[in-house]
Every structure is written in C-alpha cells, then in structure tokens.
C-alpha cells in the first residue's frame, strides 16, 4: 500500500531532518577531536576506570529499577483507582528537576542531614560520596522511563491469558511471573534500554549527591566533566567513547526486544 510520492517525500524529509539534527552534533564532536586523542583517552586508565564504574553503577541501578519498577508498573497497569493519573505524574517528576536540583533534593532526603539521614545512618548506610550514592542518583533519574514503558507493555497483554492463568490455580503472583512477564517482554526490554541510556548519560544529580571521586563515584560523564577542568580535548574524546559504548548497549538491548517482538507478532 504505497503512498503518494509527494507525501512520502515529506515523510522521508521529516525523518531525514530529524535524524540529521539528532545525529549531526554527535558526529560533529567526533570530527573535531584529533583521532590521536581518541585513542589516548582510551588508553588512559582513568577513562577505562570511569567506563567500568559507569557500567557497574548503571547495571546496579537498572536491577533496582527492574526490581521495584516492574511490580509498581504492573500495579498501575492492572488496577483502576482514583488519583491513579496523579501517581503516574508524580513518577514523572524526576524528569522536570534540573539535574543539580535533583542532586540537592537527594541530599535533602537521603544526605546525612536529610530527612532519612538519621535512619540511614543508624542502619550504617552511607550514600553520599559512595558508589552506592551514584546508584541511588542514577535510579532516581532513570526510573520514570522504565516504569512508563513497562506500564503500557503490561496494559497491552491479552487479558484472557491472565484470566486463564488464574483459573488454572495460579495466584496473581504466579500469573505475573509466568505469564505477564514473558508476554510483556518486548516492551520491558525497550523500556530498559531507554532507562539505561538515560542512566549512562546522567551527570548533574550524581555530581551533587555522590561527588566525583575517581574509582568511587566518578562515572564516565563525571570523568568527562572533570576533564573539562583540565584537558578539554580528552574530555571530548572520552565522551565520544561513552557515546559508542552507549550505542552498543542500546542496540543489543533493542535487537533482543525486536526479535522477541517479531516472535509475538507471528503468533497473532
């Protein structure tokens, strides 16, 4: 079912402009760093260290997001109650906070002097300036993306599958684990990819809440920013590396999800 040529032209144009606009800048920074610096920044052990920490902390944050966000999304998807829309909006709040403010907010809540500071302290939990703090900051900024996607993925499941599970003696828990999760897998994966992407790029909140200590809280974005204070080129070079790393991660997640997705289409 082919469209009229001119409209197809409009569509292609729009997509082209969008792509150009979103990718050209990324390309641009690549071109204006001498390749030498690119390699150098890779060799530099600080950079590798930062990338490693980024990977560790983002993965940790993702695990937390999955652990709490998935059931939360399931609840929002399967229950109808007053004020549901408000809850969904509250979950999106971290989006609108400027990163630095988000960091301050986290300090005010979980910092030593924060609302829960005393509690955490008595539990012997230290977050500020600790790797754990980075994970907390990443979780804070990245959750909304995952939860949103997960919610709509769950809402898209054919309800009779869930009902069938119930009549077969499976409680909601088992139904959730054995039926809902596999059925929503594609959506969950792409939500994970979005959240991961956001976490990989996170900077402001982490800096303010967890500080930027090499090997402890200095993730790749922080390492980049720190280099802005010493060597501009290596900062740019490092961001190039981060971008490539991110693309790889996102793409792999995406391919997984789409392949699963196709599986489900075929069935329908």
């Amino acid at each position, binding site marked *: 079912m082919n469209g009229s040529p001119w409209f197809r032209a409009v569509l292609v144009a729009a997509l082209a402009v969008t792509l150009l606009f979103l990718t050209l800048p990324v390309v641009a920074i690549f071109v204006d760093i001498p390749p030498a610096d690119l390699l150098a920044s890779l060799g530099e052990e600080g950079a590798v260290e930062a990338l490693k920490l980024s990977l560790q902390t983002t993965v940790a944050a993702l695990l937390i997001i999955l652990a709490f966000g998935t059931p939360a999304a399931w609840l929002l998807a399967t229950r109808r109650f007053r004020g549901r829309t408000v809850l969904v909006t509250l979950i999106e709040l971290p989006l609108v906070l400027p990163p630095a403010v988000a960091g301050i907010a986290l300090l005010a809540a979980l910092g030593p002097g924060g609302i829960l500071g005393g509690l955490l302290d008595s539990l012997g939990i230290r977050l500020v300036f600790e790797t754990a703090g980075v994970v907390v900051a990443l979780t804070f900024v990245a959750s909304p993306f995952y939860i949103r996607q997960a919610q709509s993925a769950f809402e898209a499941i*054919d309800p*009779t*599958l869930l*009902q*069938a*599970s*119930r*009549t*077969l*003696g*499976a*409680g909601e828990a088992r139904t959730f684990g*054995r*039926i809902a999760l*596999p*059925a929503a897998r594609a959506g969950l994966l792409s939500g994970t990819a979005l959240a991961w992407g956001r976490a990989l790029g996170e900077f402001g909140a982490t800096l303010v809440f967890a500080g930027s200590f090499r090997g402890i809280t200095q993730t790749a974005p922080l390492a980049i920013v720190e280099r802005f204070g010493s060597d501009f080129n290596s900062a740019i070079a490092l961001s190039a590396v981060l971008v490539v790393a991110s693309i790889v991660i996102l793409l792999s997640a995406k391919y997984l999800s789409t392949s699963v997705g196709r599986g*489900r289409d*075929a*069935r329908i």
Partner: protein
Amino acid sequence: MLEFEASTAFPGFDLDLKLEVAAGQCLALAGPSGAGKSTVLRIAAGLVRPDRGRVSCGGQVWYDSGRARDLAPERRRCGYVFQDYALFPHMNAWRNVAYGLREVPRRRRRALAVELLDRFEMADFADASPETLSGGERQRVALARAMGGGPEALLLDEPLSALDARTRARAARELSELLRSAEVPTLLVTHDFAEAARLGDRVAVVDGGRIVQLGSATDLASKPCSSFVADFTGAAVLTGNAGTGPLGLTSVLLDGCRAAISSTDTAQPGRVAASVYPWEITLLPETERSRGSAQNHLVAEVVSVTSLGARVRVGLDVGQPLSAEVTRVAAVELRLEPGRRVVATWKASATRIMEF
C-alpha cells in the same frame, strides 16, 4: 452441585439470572451474541464480580455479596475453556497443560501432562507451540489443560465455535465423551441449539441477560415458550444403535421402539445420536404410507400441539420424544391433538448422525 445466582449491570447491558447444575450434569447456555453467556461463566469463575448474587459449588460458597465473600479465581479451580482457547503463546503444549498441575511433584508433571494430552489424542503434539497448531488441535490442548488438576466445575465457552465444519463434528463427539465421564457440574456456552441439545443434559436459552426458557432440549423443541425460542431450537435428537443398511445407507435401531431409521451419513456401528429438523418431518394419517423417496416412517403419538403463527410445533412420542413442525393447514387436515396417532416420515438424507 453448582448454584449460581447473580445480577450485574454493564453500560447498555444488564444480567440477572439464577441456575443450578448437579454434579456430573451439563447445562448448556444457548443464546444469540451479546446475550450474556460468557459473562455468566466469568462470574462463576470469579473473573468478574457481579453487583449482587451468590455462587456456590459442591457446598463451598464461592461468592456471596450478602456475606461479602469472594473467593479468588485460583481458589475456585474451574476448568475454563475460553472462547479463543487462550493458550499461553510462550509455552509448548505440554507446558500449557502442566501449568495447572502444581500439586503434582515437578518431576512427574511432564508425564502427567502428556497423559492428559493423550486423552485427547494430542500426545504427539506435546512439544508443539500453540501458533503451529490448528484450531481443532488448540481446542483439544485447551480441554486437556482445563481438565488437569481436577477442576471443581467445567466452564466451556463455545468450545467448538472456532472450529470449521470439518473438524467440528469430531470435536463434538470427543467433547460429549468427556462430559459423560466428568463427575463435576458443567456449564457449556454455545449459540447453536443443536450443539446445546447434543452436549447439554438441559438447555437454558439466554437472551438479554435473562433465561428465556430452561428445560430438556426436547421440551424446548416441542414446547417453545416463544417464537424466538422456536426459531432458536433446531434438530430433535434420537438415540439408538447404528448398523449398515442397504446400499451404503446407515440404519439406526432406535431406543424405546423397535423401529429403525436410515441416514445417508456414514457411521461406525454402535451407539449414535440421529438428529432431524422439525420442519423436515412430514406427518401422515396413521393409515398412510408414502411410497416416495422418504425412507423413514415412524408411528408416533401426539403429545403436544403448540401454535406459532402459521406454524404448529407438534410434540411426538415415538418411544422417545421427537418434535415436528407442520402448517396450520396440515394440523387441521390431520386433526392433530394430544393422544392422536400419526406417522412421522422424513428422508434419510435429512437425518444427520453424530457418533457417541
């Protein structure tokens, strides 16, 4: 014993009905689309909570709006076959069946699942994934799944409707065997009266969320309370033993009378159900015999005469109940009235045979 009484309202539709099914019995809910048949099953299984009502099974109260009791679906353990089977797409056939077998120790589950599939001749498909199965095969997997883990009641939502003509006949036979052997109450939804008559011990005609008429298939067929029910009720069903007649015809020796009828349908020797539509039956004075091509002639006693506009439903007794539909003209000519004896005649090719 499944006792069901519920009333609930949806935008543009409200349901209010009460019914009972004894253990081992099958009540068929027949009615047009949108009548509320599936909703009854959903309420019984606990998938929909009615506004008011009471549902109990085997003495255990499942739902009681009065005592604010509402047992979760998984605790009711109904064997539910959904209109579209709802097989789990990410599990192969045996895992679909094994899903319901949690009481069974894990290592014995596969064996038992395959055993269940085998009852429906699906053992060979144990490892097949749903999307590769045909409609008929899916239906059998769904049945095997529903039977697993000893359900308290069977709820079958149009188990045959998704099948095309060629697979339906066989599926119906298998299903009726299953129902005969089942010890639990069964609710079966269909919008085909013949199917209801074939599979249900009693039939409830449902329309607009109400039961319009409830009774044995033959009652409904011979004494429909409204022309809607009359239109809805189809073939009357006669039971007997099949044997081979002349020239490839199947002849059926009917229960309750020495007479035999013949059909063009082929069937294995043994017990069968033969169905004939009321309007296919011609009534003759007892003294008459047509020498035409009509093969079947049964002496019958008129039990009831129900007038439906220009048509007349005549309840007959031929050792087992049978109903015919004739014109008012004919009814007058033949002076039909309860007690009068007539000859019911119809064609072998009008006799459809379903094996038990």
